[in-house]
């Protein structure tokens, strides 16, 4: 017999593999760390699975809903905050149920490695009254896709597969199968009572949901996803997801109740487990989601009294929390106060030009989510406000309306191309409708950059690699009623400055599209690095204030790393002494007033 094929996969790759092996037919999503690589890997199976990037999570969710309502097995992927955007359909699809399986993948980010908050989306599953599964490694990520599809169809419900950054991005060995079930469903007849949620229908569905949740509770009690490992009975630990792996690392002898299905919880099984052991802990990352329910059921456990509810857990935190003992690690480096190494805009990044000009103009800036959020860090230090996708535009209007013209003249909203399409466009419609006068900059780098360079409606390419209509941002902005639209190269600092001065002063709404490809996708870019003449460099550090990693300061002179420099000139334009050279020629720029 042939040996089963094994591969080391990330959790995200394993979910994609599960989608293929267990018969997903339609997959949609919007990129967001740590979820982005799921669909990027589903596309490997595009001969079997239709997959797409949608403009935002709500659209993705509804696309997958349509497929599931009409009998196709579907999935939708997003990061935790994406489910806030998709929350509207999320709650009501829970009422309708499905014809074909529907798996909702929520990738949470405990510890906020790449997010603005660390909301615990397990609460959403309970809130919407749908089942939830939580894998603890890549093999389970794949297997649980199969379980989610099975539960979805057996109980007529959407199912949440909740993963976290650590399960998404860590790799472990997975056994692959080459089976893929065929879905022979026919296009279903009309069932408006189930799929059109007018109040009369929804009231009936609400009762059915209650019955469904009771059935799911029974299922959870018997499910092999919830496993009891009885060892030493002194300590028992109830846990979920990645925390299980940490516990096995530091408490190999403890008895463990590992919950793979965490909504609804198997309360009888939990009760029985706590009665078997002398002392029982609940170890879960973030909120006391399981703990509160267990305690409400009158079961005595120890949880957040000792386990942190903020940030990621790890083996040593769990060990210290439970034993009160140190892990035997001494930090001797902390006292050296090493320089930090924060992420930065890449050398040659078009966004840098925009921030250098905004800083010069002393603009107050309402920002948004993307690489350009890095403009908040020193030395650019250019952002005042930022909340979520799309808010860069709408907050600008709110600030202007709350204040006066003097504030509006200094006010700019910045938003990326993908983010503008995601949810900036509605804010812009509002700005025109409600007579705002501020300036919005669409930082158009022709890609969804921060999450790993995914296509979007204005790139002219689909996730599956097909050519498609390229959304024209200029025409779109004009169509909503913006009369003043300018397109400018963000590395042409004098021109950008001139345009921004005019548009910021104008008592009408304006959109400035700063257009240049992300330096990581620009294949035509001729990288001609700059040099600094140490004789001419006075060590004034003005060039360093553009915050570029290609620059360094040694022996009181600026130095350029030729490996990193793209020759974008933003630093050279700051020099008052003509110290920069390219191809041996000194660069002279006319000073702007």
């Amino acid at each position, binding site marked *: 017999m042939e040996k089963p094929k094994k591969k080391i996969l990330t959790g995200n790759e394993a979910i994609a593999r599960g989608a293929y092996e267990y018969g997903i037919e339609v997959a949609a999503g919007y990129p967001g760390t740590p979820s982005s690589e799921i669909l990027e890997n589903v596309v490997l199976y595009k001969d079997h699975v239709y997959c797409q990037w949608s403009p935002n999570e709500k659209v993705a969710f509804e696309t997958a809903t349509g497929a599931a309502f009409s009998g196709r097995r579907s999935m939708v992927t997003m990061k935790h905050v994406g489910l806030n955007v998709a929350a509207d359909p999320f709650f009501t699809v829970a009422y309708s149920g499905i014809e074909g399986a529907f798996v909702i993948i929520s990738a949470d980010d405990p510890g906020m490695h*790449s997010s603005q908050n660390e909301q615990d989306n397990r609460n959403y599953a309970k809130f919407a009254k749908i089942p939830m599964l939580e894998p603890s490694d890549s093999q389970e990520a794949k297997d649980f896709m199969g379980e989610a599809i099975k539960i979805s169809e057996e109980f007529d419900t959407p199912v949440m597969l909740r993963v976290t950054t650590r399960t998404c991005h*860590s790799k472990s060995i997975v056994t692959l199968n080459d089976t893929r079930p065929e879905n022979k469903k026919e296009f279903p007849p009309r069932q408006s009572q189930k799929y059109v949620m007018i109040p009369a229908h929804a009231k009936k569905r609400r009762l059915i949901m209650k019955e469904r949740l009771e059935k799911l509770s029974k299922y959870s009690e018997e499910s092999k996803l919830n496993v009891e490992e009885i060892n030493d009975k002194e300590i028992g630990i109830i846990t979920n997801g990645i925390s299980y792996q940490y516990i096995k690392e530091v408490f190999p002898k403890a008895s463990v109740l590992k919950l793979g299905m965490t909504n609804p919880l198997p309360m009888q099984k939990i009760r029985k487990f706590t009665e078997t052991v002398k002392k029982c802990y609940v170890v879960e990352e973030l909120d006391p989601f399981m703990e509160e329910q267990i305690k409400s059921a009158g079961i005595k456990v120890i949880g957040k009294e000792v386990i942190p509810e903020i940030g990621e857990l790890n083996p040593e935190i769990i060990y210290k929390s439970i034993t009160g003992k140190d892990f035997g690690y001494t930090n001797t480096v902390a006292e*050296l106060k090493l320089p930090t190494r924060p992420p930065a805009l890449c050398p040659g990044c078009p966004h840098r030009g925009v921030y250098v000009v905004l800083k010069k103009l002393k603009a107050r800036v309402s920002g948004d989510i993307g690489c350009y959020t890095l403009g908040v860090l020193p030395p650019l230090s250019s952002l005042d406000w930022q909340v979520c996708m799309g808010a860069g535009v709408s907050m600008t209007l709110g600030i202007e309306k709350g204040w006066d013209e003097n504030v509006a003249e200094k006010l700019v909203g910045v938003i990326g191309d993908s983010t503008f399409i995601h949810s900036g466009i509605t804010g812009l419609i509002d700005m025109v409708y409600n007579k705002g006068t501020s300036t919005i900059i669409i930082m158009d780098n022709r890609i969804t950059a921060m999450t790993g360079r995914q296509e979007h409606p204005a790139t002219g390419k689909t996730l599956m690699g097909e050519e498609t209509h390229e959304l024209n941002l200029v025409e779109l902005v004009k169509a909503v009623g913006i009369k003043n639209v300018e397109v400018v190269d963000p590395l042409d600092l004098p021109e950008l400055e001139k345009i921004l001065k005019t548009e910021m002063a104008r008592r009408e709404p304006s959109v400035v599209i700063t257009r240049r490809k992300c330096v990581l996708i620009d294949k035509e870019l001729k990288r001609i690095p700059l040099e600094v003449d140490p004789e001419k460099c006075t060590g004034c550090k003005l060039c360093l204030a553009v915050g570029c990693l290609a620059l360094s300061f040694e022996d009181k002179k600026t130095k350029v790393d030729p490996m990193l420099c793209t020759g974008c000139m933003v630093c050279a334009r700051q020099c008052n002494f003509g110290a920069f050279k390219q191809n041996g020629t000194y660069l002279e720029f006319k000073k702007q007033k």
Partner: protein
Amino acid sequence: MSDTKNVLIVGVGGQGVITASEILSEVAMLEGYDVKKSEIHGMSQRGGSVSSHIRFNKEKVYSPTAPEGTIDFLMSFEKLEGLRWIDHLRQDAVAVINDYRWDPLPVSSGQVEYTPEVEKKIKERRKAIIYKASDVASKLGNIRATNIVLVGTLAKLLPFKKETWIEVIKNRVPPKTIELNIKAFEEGFKQEF
């Protein structure tokens, strides 16, 4: 505690940390070990500090991250990053460190100084081999092969067959660069301790 061996690979986003850790985990799997590895992608790609844990054992490996203070081998592509993580090593562990300086943003923007005497501070703390791996790669024709030079040095310390490393590298790197990368691996493997 288990017999799991813990390797930590660190560097700056863009230096090939992830490729090196992929190669190592693949080698361990082919040699019949259970393997887990973990790193954080996302914002850290852009010139930020990147670290990757690789753990292997003949028995089952549980946590994808190694507890602090239990690292058996550290490989660092940049010296300041090597120092940053040095305390995570066991007292008797070994560090392989590229003698290469890449200024982080607070330094390159003139806000703070790069830490002086990094090499000395590393050696005061743990046993370390510090050499100019980037120069070795540059001499071979491409500084981007630095990660494979360092992988070669790490390979000497780990219990895997040289052929397995070479097989994995061949499958992993772009076809046009196979010859260069094999040379880079061999150069790293030659490093004396």
